[in-house]
């Protein structure tokens, strides 16, 4: 159990709360009226040298270029696939953005409705039109395994500090895990182990705002899988 006492107390703010009236720069999820910075969403106040912002506690995933996401094929066109990435907008995957040479109208030979793919967000324009790509290393169709969904704001907790949490879960359950920035997580492994990994991740999703999360998850996995693998640090 490590305690960091130097950490300032978390301050939860609601929309309309004044964050700063001394001229600090407005950060994410804020708005400014008459030089005063107000919170625009329910979240945790975050003040640093760049300004004052709010880290949201919930809400929909909004794609950013470069995000690694997991999506499910929704619909097939003759030159593109529509992918559901849990954003407020549809995400088309064009045939020029996949690692195969696809003939016009031959899209369903490569990816079909219900297939799960690991993608990268290529661009989001002003009108919030999204484009995704599979043309990057490691991006591919995910076969087998299972999906868990958690609020996207909890993704950083599942990964943990420099990947500590996810490394621990991977090592202890011996599963292959991919985490999408959009809160969709793909897990593949031995049946019982995968089940425990799913439960552990769901647990993080539920208790993300509480303390000593890593300890709790470790305890949980140790209880469920008594002969789990060693914990790698």
């Amino acid at each position, binding site marked *: 159990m490590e305690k960091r006492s130097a950490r300032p*107390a978390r301050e*939860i703010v*609601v*929309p*309309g709360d004044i964050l700063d009236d001394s001229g600090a720069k407005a950060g994410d999820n804020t708005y400014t009226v008459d030089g005063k910075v107000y919170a*625009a969403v*329910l979240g945790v106040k975050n003040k640093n040298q760049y300004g004052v912002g709010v880290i949201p506690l919930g809400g929909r995933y909004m794609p950013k270029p470069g995000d690694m996401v997991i999506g499910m094929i929704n619909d097939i066109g003759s030159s593109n696939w529509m992918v559901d990435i849990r954003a407020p907008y549809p995400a088309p995957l064009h045939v020029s953005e996949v690692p195969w040479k696809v003939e016009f109208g031959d899209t369903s030979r490569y990816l079909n409705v219900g297939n799960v793919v690991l993608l990268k967000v290529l661009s989001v324009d002003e009108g919030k039109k999204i484009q995704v790509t599979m043309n990057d290393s490691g991006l591919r169709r995910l076969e087998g395994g299972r999906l868990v969904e958690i609020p996207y704001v909890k993704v950083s*907790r599942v990964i943990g500090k420099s990947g500590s949490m996810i490394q621990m879960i991977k090592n202890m359950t011996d599963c292959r895990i991919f985490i999408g920035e959009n809160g969709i997580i793909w897990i593949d492994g031995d049946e019982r182990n995968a089940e425990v990994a799913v439960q552990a991740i769901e647990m993080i999703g539920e208790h993300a*705002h509480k*303390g000593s999360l890593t300890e709790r998850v470790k305890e949980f996995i140790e209880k469920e899988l008594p002969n789990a693998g060693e914990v790698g640090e």
Partner: protein
Amino acid sequence: MSGTTDMILVDKDGKRIDGRMPEEHRAVKIEAGVLANADGSAYVEIGKNKVLAAVYGPRECHPRHLQDPTKAIIQCKYNMQTYSVSDRKRPGTDRRSVEISKITAEALEKVVLTELYPRASIDVYIEILQANAGTRCAGLTAASVALADAGIPMRDIIPAIAAGKADGHVLLDLNKEEDNFGQADVPIAIVPSTNEIVLLQMDGNMTRQEFDRAIELAVGGCHDLYKLQKEALLKRYGDGGDSDE
């Protein structure tokens, strides 16, 4: 405002039939995040009113012709359950619920930062489980907490409350008897940080002085409600200690 009665709504000490003083609102209970499957939700009790609000979105707007390429639209549905009133309410949309849905959506549009989500739709569903006058205000109060709970960017949370006139007295937060046998009912909703009014309706008759007094009472009541709305949202994330990462 519909009937007459020999009931004494305000006695000579200024006390109302439920024991409140003229400037007192009913007991309020607000809870955020009560539904697991909606993106955001809230449950509100104001006196005998029981209201549930759920929010979905922002999501793709259907039907497509309603999409606005410059901002998100807010679609609101206000619905009364058949068992919400003493005579069974005929289920489904009626003129009254269409009106309330419209004014609620318009009030919420003033605070939600809709320009962040062009072409999208934010759907608000308000269910009246039990009604005792003032459900439009309770519904709007619940809806704005649900929106904040859904993580939707907004300028402020809006509280709503009614003031009115019964037995010749200006009263805050009318109950059913005062609403039915009173002379006027003025529901209002404000943006607490600026005191802007985003909803104002009036039913019945009042003098200018009485109206000003009613607004004064209702704005005060809104600020009380606002504190409770904030508390409800903070309470949702209040348990548990510091984060460890």
